[in-house]
């Protein structure tokens, strides 16, 4: 499918999360599993060996266990923004469930879309909207063009020629100054 028709969005943060304090966006998890059948073995293993550790580390996440006879196990996660995601964990080993749960825990809950850009800002330009007058000194209103003074090149630092000339001047006047030597070594 061409990228133009797939849904896309900009990178965004929920509620400026993390600027003041970080609030884990995962609100609740419902783990439904079967107490007897094989596909739920990993889920049962997870509940017996890893679940308590997860709840201890994340007291802000409510976990519901929902035993359902002869149903395949699944993970239903809800985020603070109201979105719900369901994932089948049929025949998943406990380690995989741990990793997936961690994946859900660290997400913002915003739907995963194709991002138009990998960065986003609400203020794309600091200088404001461009106009023909942006960064134009008003003295140009009364200047007659072409103007020798304005057309002059403005080097941001001393050119090599100028540096050699100034070094030669210093030699002519006596011993080379420390400043001139310092600049030489920079080259």
């Amino acid at each position, binding site marked *: 499918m061409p990228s133009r028709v797939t849904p896309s969005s900009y990178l965004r943060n*929920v*509620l*400026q999360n993390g*600027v*003041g*304090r970080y*609030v*884990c966006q995962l*609100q*609740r998890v*419902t783990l*439904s599993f079967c107490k007897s059948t094989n596909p739920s073995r990993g889920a049962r293993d997870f509940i017996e060996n890893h679940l308590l550790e997860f709840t201890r580390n994340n*007291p*802000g*996440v*409510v976990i*519901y266990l*929902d035993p*359902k006879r002869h149903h395949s196990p699944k993970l*239903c996660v*809800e985020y*603070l*923004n*109201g979105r*719900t995601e*369901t994932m089948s964990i049929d025949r998943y080993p406990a380690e995989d469930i741990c990793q997936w749960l961690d994946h859900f825990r660290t997400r913002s809950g915003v739907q995963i879309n194709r991002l138009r850009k990998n960065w986003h800002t*609400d*203020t794309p330009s*600091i200088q*404001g*909207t461009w*106009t*023909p*007058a942006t960064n*134009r000194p*008003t003295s140009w*209103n009364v200047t007659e063009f072409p103007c020798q003074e304005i057309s002059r090149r403005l080097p941001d630092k001393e050119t090599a020629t100028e540096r050699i000339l100034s070094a030669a001047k210093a030699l002519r006047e006596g011993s080379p100054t420390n400043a001139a030597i310092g600049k030489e070594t920079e080259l």
Partner: protein
Amino acid sequence: MGSITAGIYSKYPEYCKLPKGDSSSETTIAELETIFGRFGIPVEVFVRDVLERRLQCLGFVLYGDQNGFVKCTEGELKYHLNLKFRDFSSQTGYEFHQYDKHCAQFECLCRNYDSEIYSFGKRLGEEFNENLLRTAFVDRSDVESADSNEELASTGSKLAVTYIKAYLRHAYPGLPEEGISTITEHLMSDQVLSYVASNLGVPDLIKAENWPFSEEVIANSFKAVIGALAESQNVSRAELFVQDLVLTQLIGRDLFELWDIVNPVGLIQSIFNKQGRGELEPRLLWEAGSDTVVSSYMVGFYENKKLIGKGFGESVPIAEEMAARDALRNVFGLKLNRPALPFGKEGRNLNLDLTKLNASMAQISSSPQQQLN
């Protein structure tokens, strides 16, 4: 006409309509017994208002005691139903097809209010007094509960307003009191607070009469949470809560958008008059494409040949107004390249003076009415 729905945990719920005109408790209990016969005695039974009255008058409670199940109250029922299944609850049965479609969500329906309350505080990194937090979520429209969150909300609201004002005065010492008040009002508006609260899971816990909850109910509950935090821990903790969750909503907002100045040209002039500074002179700096649809004019405000502010627009009056706004930004200290507000680590030790006031409009300008009208 009454109805019974059973099997809140299962994928295929039972639904039976009670005969029209005959919805007495005998009929209801008889119907329930057939359902219980098929599924066993339930752990909990949710009862809705009309039915509840009917059942209570004929000893349904007794019936429940005999059979060993717990009857949920109206408030708890609402809580359960409010979460995901609102449509279903309002028109029980008639939305069956819709219910089937949302079966996956339905399985996530049953919640434990105690756990949700516990993790609400933990999630925000705060230690709440549980009873206070419970009270904070009870709206006054909820008939089930004895107390409501009104008192906590007013405490929280006062605290938040005082703190937000002090914070803004600290961050923008040049901004007049009127501007501080307007921005505070914006932050404390139902719209902003309910947005913040909705993204923190507050609506899930609210106990109130009508769903969907109005912005007012949600915002009120959030204010009450702030009040509950102040009473559970201390005021400074609640203030940091406000800073982290409410004041951060100012990020990326143009303050002049929130505080609309009607007559900026008149205002900047009157401020300069009051300060006894020179006459302000608007001058056209540049113009381009004046006869086209993309014309652009740039106007600058000068005081004694010194540029105070400049702005551009598609006509000279608009450009003049924008230039005046730019000049006001410079006067009030709201330049676009101002440093960011102190949040996070920087916002922890601000030592705000809650009593200090900024200059009001009447103090800095000769005719404040020009702006206020």
